[in-house]
């Protein structure tokens, strides 16, 4: 019996296990590393890569959200008004992304270039955004007051309960709309954009922002996943090892995170993203015949 094919699921498992370990330490979701790197180095069609990326981000967010919610860090009340907009755009992003690769002969090459460009943008966001641990919310918007967008959690490093209040819900809505579209189109979780919007625009403390971002990802990615499921863009031989790899890796990564210096890992991840961005753009340009194919 030929078992040579086993190399593929095994390498995917190892690959996603490593991504799963790195992700919680660096503060990025798994999809933002998985999609560009798999696009650059694995032979799968982009449809299956994006479908798997979404399912991985979903599985990882679903596994961590209950615990974060019980601690008071992820808040359903903050999440609900935001996903009304971002869920619709994430589904739209999924439909547009799948149509582009299906209807246009060079669609996958254009998506490669767009993905590389988005990664360069994410790199810039991560480079320039300076998260605020405990933002001061001076003026509470009337919608935030009406909806009671507040909460509390016990912060062990301070030894006390921290209360918080978020604001600017209306201003943040268009941002979450755009983020949802990119998440659905490229099969990513998009925590890289949710977190600065929640933290810097809405005034959520950084821990609340990262946790509520996870809750947002559960809804956005789940809704977009149905577009990929309906198009047959989930393939068990790719999805199974990736979901198992990221789930185990994330659990290991969460334990290691407490003992490592996140700044070094974050710099490493940013370097990987920059390389992946350049490779994806070169791959797309090579596919379009603008330059010779490099790989």
């Amino acid at each position, binding site marked *: 019996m*030929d078992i040579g*094919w*086993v190399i593929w699921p095994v390498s995917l498992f190892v690959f996603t296990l490593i991504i799963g370990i790195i992700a919680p330490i660096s503060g990025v979701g798994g999809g933002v590393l998985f999609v560009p790197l798999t696009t650059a180095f694995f*032979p*799968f*069609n982009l*449809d*299956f890569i994006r*479908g798997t990326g979404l*399912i991985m981000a*979903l*599985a990882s967010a*679903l*596994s961590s*959200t*209950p*615990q974060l*919610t*019980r*601690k*008071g860090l*992820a*808040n*359903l*009340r903050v999440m*609900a*008004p935001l996903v*009304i907009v971002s*869920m*619709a755009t994430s*589904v739209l992003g999924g439909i547009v992304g799948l149509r582009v690769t*299906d209807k246009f002969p060079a669609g*996958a090459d254009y998506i490669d270039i767009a993905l590389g460009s988005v990664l360069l943008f994410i790199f810039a966001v991560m480079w320039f955004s300076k998260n605020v641990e405990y933002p001061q919310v001076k003026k509470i918007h009337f919608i935030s007051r*009406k*909806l009671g967008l507040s909460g*509390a*959690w*016990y912060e062990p490093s301070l030894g006390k*309960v921290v209360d918080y209040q978020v604001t600017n819900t209306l201003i943040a809505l268009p941002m979450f709309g755009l983020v949802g579209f990119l998440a659905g189109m490229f099969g990513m979780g998009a925590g890289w954009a949710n977190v600065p919007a929640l933290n810097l625009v809405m005034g959520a403390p950084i821990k609340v922002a990262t946790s509520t971002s996870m809750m947002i990802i*559960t*809804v956005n990615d*789940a*809704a*977009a*996943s*149905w*577009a990929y*499921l*309906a*198009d*047959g863009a*989930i*393939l*068990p*031989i*790719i*999805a*199974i090892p990736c*979901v*198992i790899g990221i789930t185990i890796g994330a659990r290991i990564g969460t334990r290691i995170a407490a003992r490592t210096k996140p700044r070094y890992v974050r710099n490493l991840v940013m370097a990987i993203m920059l390389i992946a961005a350049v490779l994806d753009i070169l791959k797309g340009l090579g596919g379009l015949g603008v330059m010779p194919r490099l790989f």
Partner: protein
Amino acid sequence: MDEEQIKIGPDNTLFAGTMDIATSIGLFIILAAGIFYFTGLHDMVNAHSAIQNWDKTAPEFWEATTGNRVGGYSWFVDHLTTIDGVTILGVAFLAFVPLLSVLVVLPKATRPYKFILGLLILEFILAILRPIL
């Protein structure tokens, strides 16, 4: 006030509890079916065929491997007796978990949130039904 005394509200508690249990069920289905899938037990598309065609777009892949055009959910719902059909069912279940968690919370939500969560549920159901409408 310490960690034990933080009140996160019945909506958040119910949401977390439902998501926790449902996610475990979804991951168990994927894991259990996945183990059997790699043994080659009664599959819809065997591993060799998948590898030969996975560079094709999703619609081209299914046409080449099964002779069927995909559109909607029948490509896996009609094949739940196959192990890859069950795996995809596990994935679909995971994609259903957030809707289930919000549905459970709805009766306990306060008035403004009943409206927001109702809207969210409606949007989610439309996202699921859109491909088959």
